[in-house]
């Protein structure tokens, strides 16, 4: 009998075309077959230009899908949405590349348009056991399906298009086991923010992280996607979860899912997609779900986060190697040491992004907003993760809840998460955001981002400051 294997190594071994060094362990250099990719308008142009310049064509065009998501306006009137010349050119070039190279493109007016990491799963294009690499760092999202998903740059997109492979280095493995039950008001977003806070922005660097434990199994597939999506913020190149019945049910019936007969055959293989008992991980971490509070970020790196009941740290209390960064972050964020987080007033609230703009996220936020109003002076926006999510939400009336509370009901796109469109923060504006990065200037030059769950954004929007969602959930809103 062969040695017990991790889920990550099983999937890599299934996709290994050849090994350059035959070492078999972490660091092995190999040629890896890639099942699928999704292209966006801003990291793909130079890859296509490279193909054209070299006279190359895509190896397997049908293994790629292109979507417009990063630069488009989310103006409800798509025709009126502002596009600068650069954005317009990128969108046109994506369309041109799709036509010239036989790759399907969902443009701005396609009913299936949306953020790449929302669109791929909802179509049923993400299947357990796959390797999916794409030109966006949040490609780790696909790990919720038992997929090795990872972000690549433009040169590697070109390599992938031309060869359907990547030259790959096998990662080390890390297992994060989460047992117990999340407390009421605490979500997957809080769980992953707590992991990032604990291990640091590079705590999983060089590793494929497998999330395990009964707290993970209890989560819905969309919540699992939130965790895998944000694992890149602690340096994980790959995040993984063993697929289960919930995953199969999520895929079954999606427009591009395998047909019934093939689906049944696939299920047999999917059931074996788990780490063998006794498989060895290079690193292990255990958490108890019940100990996790609702989280918010206070600084400019996702690991600068705390429980909402906490206070901005005093740099003098931090380890010496973290002090200078904390002082810099505090100055940028306009915060003073020891301030209670719940005293921080906001100007903007944003629900959106590949991390937290799926239907379940919208439902969570709507539950808090029902019967309440956005605080005076706060501009609140919601941009559903895809045009499909947007129409599902409208079908069940959630859009009315947002609109009646005072949120702008926008179109789908990455939007204010990285503000490559017209939705950016003004200098000094402070935003409660369901996104993934609080970097300096991320949501606009001088803009200040506090990361949190969608329900926590809703709570901040109605109170006008960072707020503990548990106090609102407990109180009966005026109706």
């Amino acid at each position, binding site marked *: 009998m062969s040695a017990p294997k991790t889920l990550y190594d099983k999937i890599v071994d299934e996709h290994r075309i050849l090994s350059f060094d035959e070492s078999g362990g972490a660091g092995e250099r190999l040629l890896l077959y890639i099942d699928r990719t999704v292209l966006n308008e801003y990291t793909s142009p130079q890859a296509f230009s490279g193909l054209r310049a070299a006279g190359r064509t895509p190896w397997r065009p049908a293994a790629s899908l292109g979507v417009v998501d990063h630069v488009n306006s989310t103006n409800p009137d798509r025709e009126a949405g502002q596009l600068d010349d650069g954005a317009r050119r990128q969108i046109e070039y994506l369309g041109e590349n799709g036509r010239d190279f036989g790759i399907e493109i969902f443009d701005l007016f396609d009913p299936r348009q949306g953020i790449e990491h929302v669109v791929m799963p909802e179509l049923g294009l993400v*299947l357990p056991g796959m390797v999916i690499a794409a030109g966006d760092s949040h490609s780790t999202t696909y790990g919720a399906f038992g997929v090795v998903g990872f*972000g690549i740059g433009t040169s590697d997109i070109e390599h992938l298009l031309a*060869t359907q492979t990547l030259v790959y280095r096998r990662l080390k493995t890390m297992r994060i086991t989460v047992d117990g039950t999340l407390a009421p008001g605490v979500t997957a977003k809080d769980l992953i923010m707590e992991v990032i806070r604990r291990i640091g922005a590079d705590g999983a660097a060089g590793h494929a992280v497998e999330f395990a434990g009964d707290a993970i199994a209890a989560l819905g597939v969309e919540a699992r996607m939130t965790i895998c999506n944000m694992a890149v913020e602690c340096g994980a*190149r790959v995040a993984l979860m063993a697929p289960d019945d919930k995953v199969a049910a999520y895929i079954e019936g999606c427009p*591009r899912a395998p047909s019934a007969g*093939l689906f049944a055959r696939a299920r047999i293989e999917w059931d074996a997609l788990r780490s063998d008992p006794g498989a060895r991980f290079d690193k292990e971490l255990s958490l108890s779900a019940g100990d996790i509070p609702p989280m918010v970020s206070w600084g400019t790196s996702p690991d600068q986060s705390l429980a909402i009941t906490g206070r901005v740290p005093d740099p003098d209390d931090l380890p010496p190697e973290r002090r200078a960064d904390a002082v810099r972050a505090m100055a940028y964020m306009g915060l003073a040491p020891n301030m209670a987080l719940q005293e921080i007033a906001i100007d903007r609230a944003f629900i959106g992004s590949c991390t937290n703009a799926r239907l379940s996220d919208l439902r969570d936020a709507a539950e808090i907003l029902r019967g309440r109003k956005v605080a005076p002076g706060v501009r609140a926006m919601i941009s559903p993760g895809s045009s499909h999510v947007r129409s599902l939400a409208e079908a069940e009336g959630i859009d009315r809840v947002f609109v009646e509370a005072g949120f702008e009901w926008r179109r789908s796109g990455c939007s204010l998460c990285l503000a490559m469109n017209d939705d950016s923060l003004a200098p000094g504006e402070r935003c409660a955001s369901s996104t993934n990065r609080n*970097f*300096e200037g991320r949501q606009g030059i001088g803009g200040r981002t506090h990361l949190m769950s969608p329900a926590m954004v809703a709570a901040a929007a109605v109170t006008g400051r960072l707020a503990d969602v548990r106090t609102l959930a407990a109180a009966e809103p005026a109706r």
Partner: protein
Amino acid sequence: MKGFVRETGRVAAMPGANIDTDVIMPKAFLKGIDRSGLAVGLFHDLRFDETGAVRSDFILNRPDMADARFLLVGPNFGCGSSREHAVWGMLQYGIRGIIGSSYGAIFADNAANNGLLLLSLPVAEVAALAAQLKGGAGDMTIDLEAQRIETGAQIAGFDIDPATRRALMLGLDRIGETLTHADRIRAFEEAYLARKPWLMDAGSDERLS
């Protein structure tokens, strides 16, 4: 891709942790469809204020750093977004190598694909180099062939992955290299898809609307 064998130049120290690719190449410079014009975008919001005036306190704006060729950086440099524009901007600005303790993984791959040398040294060695540079030893030579860093009187060795080293020194076309294995790829693909027919390309379907 330009090869890297031995380079000498000024080194600028930027010791903060987690300097991300949003900061290295702000979004305003990501709207092109080619790779040009990115030198001005490098660290743009650190180099210039809102009015476009030069921030004289930023390291790369110091007169003695006008032709900086290397950066000495803090941990997890280049984390965040996959944007390769960050690496293109570095090279267009004139940066040829970075010395630090750890890097964002996608950034590291992008660097290797473009001939930007990233050296990973233990935290203590990075700190020792930074301390030396404070003393005015501003120039450094990185010899990739001999695998050593020369700063004034001091010479230190470094480890680097042999495959990355070779690709950097030769400035290899990686796609061309991989395509020499085209037959192996094709044979693998055929067997793989036959074994897992549910992975065959899904046809177009309009059920989602």
